[in-house]
């Protein structure tokens, strides 16, 4: 086999490998960008909470749980209707989420809650002329402690503390990896572009890589949605369930968006390839 023939067999293999690497890097880059825009974004979390009706549902659930406590402690439902109205769940939740993303202390302030409840109970005792013997201080403090515990449990987002730990640890590394992958994609594309003698071949190999990236990215939401796994998640409350489903549906929407961008670039490169190819063949 002559040198020129051997080169003609080796070149497609090398460029094919570069196309594969381009596809791989674009796939990894897309995942990093999806994570950056969703999992690592405080705004995305807060938007998911607002869009899934999380705040309203948490307020309702807190009210229901406190009313159940009221049944065990002699306080009527109306007492908690008024009391829960005064609690600003939106602010409490926003502070709670922000504290995770900023890495600060994540304790929910229960002192204000407890004091507000004691004040409300005192008003209730006074308005209803309840005998002091029937309003034992220890029993009321026990009730307030239980209510406070319910309040903290209801406001907390399950599993969020675990994820927040990773968010804080991986934020900077993810940023570096994303920049590195973007640079790698550009370098590979540049190698393919500038080392190819024929213009149409430059676009052909880049199209292979972009196409592979598009298919790899779109596989993830297709597999997840076709498995129907998200709506089957078993969470304790409706608020958490709706937040989870809304959060992940929005997250996978980003996969569709990145897949669409890669598809668009693939089509553009393919069209350019055809033009260049026809021009080369025509010449």
């Amino acid at each position, binding site marked *: 086999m002559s040198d020129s023939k051997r080169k003609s067999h080796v070149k497609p293999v090398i460029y094919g490998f570069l196309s594969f690497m381009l596809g791989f890097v674009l796939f990894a880059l897309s995942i990093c960008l999806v994570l950056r825009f969703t999992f690592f974004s405080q705004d995305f979390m807060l938007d998911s909470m607002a869009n899934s009706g999380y705040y309203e549902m948490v307020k309702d659930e807190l009210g229901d749980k406190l009313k159940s406590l009221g049944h065990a402690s002699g306080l009527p439902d109306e007492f908690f209707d008024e009391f829960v109205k005064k609690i600003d769940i939106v602010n409490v939740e926003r502070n709670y989420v922000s504290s995770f993303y900023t890495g600060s202390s994540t304790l929910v302030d229960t002192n204000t809650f407890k004091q507000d409840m004691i004040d409300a109970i005192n008003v209730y005792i006074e308005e209803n002329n309840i005998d002091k013997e029937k309003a034992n201080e220890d029993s009321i403090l*026990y009730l307030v402690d239980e209510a406070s515990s319910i309040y903290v449990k209801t406001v907390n987002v399950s599993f969020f503390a675990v994820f927040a730990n990773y968010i804080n640890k991986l934020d900077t590394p993810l940023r570096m990896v994303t920049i590195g992958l973007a640079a790698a994609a550009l370098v590979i594309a540049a190698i393919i572009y500038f080392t190819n003698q024929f213009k149409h071949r430059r676009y052909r190999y880049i199209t292979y890589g972009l196409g592979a990236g598009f298919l790899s990215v779109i596989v993830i939401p297709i597999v997840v949605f076709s498995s129907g796994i998200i709506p089957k998640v078993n969470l304790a409350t409706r608020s958490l369930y709706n937040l989870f489903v809304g959060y992940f549906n929005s997250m996978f929407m980003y996969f569709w968006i990145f897949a669409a961008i890669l598809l668009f670039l693939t089509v553009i490169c393919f069209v350019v390839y055809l033009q260049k190819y026809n021009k080369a063949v025509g010449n």
Partner: protein
Amino acid sequence: MRKHRTSHRSKGGKNFIILPIIFCVLIIGISTAIVYPSAYSFISMARFLISDGEKDFSTGYNNIFVPVEDSEGENSSGERKIVPMSQMEFPSYGEQFGELIIEDCQIEAKLFFNDGDNELNNGVGVFAGSFIPGYGKTILVAGHNNTYFNGLKYAKKGQKVKIRTSYGNYVYEINETKIVDKSDVDACNLGADYENLVMYTCYPFDELGLTPQRYFVYAKFVSGPALDDKN
């Protein structure tokens, strides 16, 4: 020359479909091999969070209680009737499967299996770690002292407690009342091998707040069908 052009274009066209697919399979395969070991703990945890279907968050409850006549608890000869378990519907968590009545205490409450918030908001509940009537063991029933079990404050020795279920009606007789600390775990013998009913609620009655004591009412079995687990 024309022949060469045609074959070249055809080969290139196929590659635009086949190569990205092959690359995609390789990318997904390699990515899975890289990520799976480190994500194994997350995947294992996630499996526990997935149920067979969508969860029902409704706060309503299922009612399987269909009243039966009083005489259905005994045979014509007056012997204790046997109900094969295969012929009865076992209650699931949170289901209403009967009602509890103490006429002398003005108590008439729906009886649930389990004693969570939802059950105690709607009636009284059998602790799921105890037994249902007819089993020949301890039936531990909880209720709130400000609502359905408020009448327990009138409980006295000799008073009758009726439990009506779809598989038979039961009568118990109160033989003791006791006030204990909430942390007293010896107040109820769940391991008893004879049928007995234990009802409890918070104490003191009608007090505002969560009280540190519990009021226990013990009742012995009088009548009602036995459940036969062999059939």
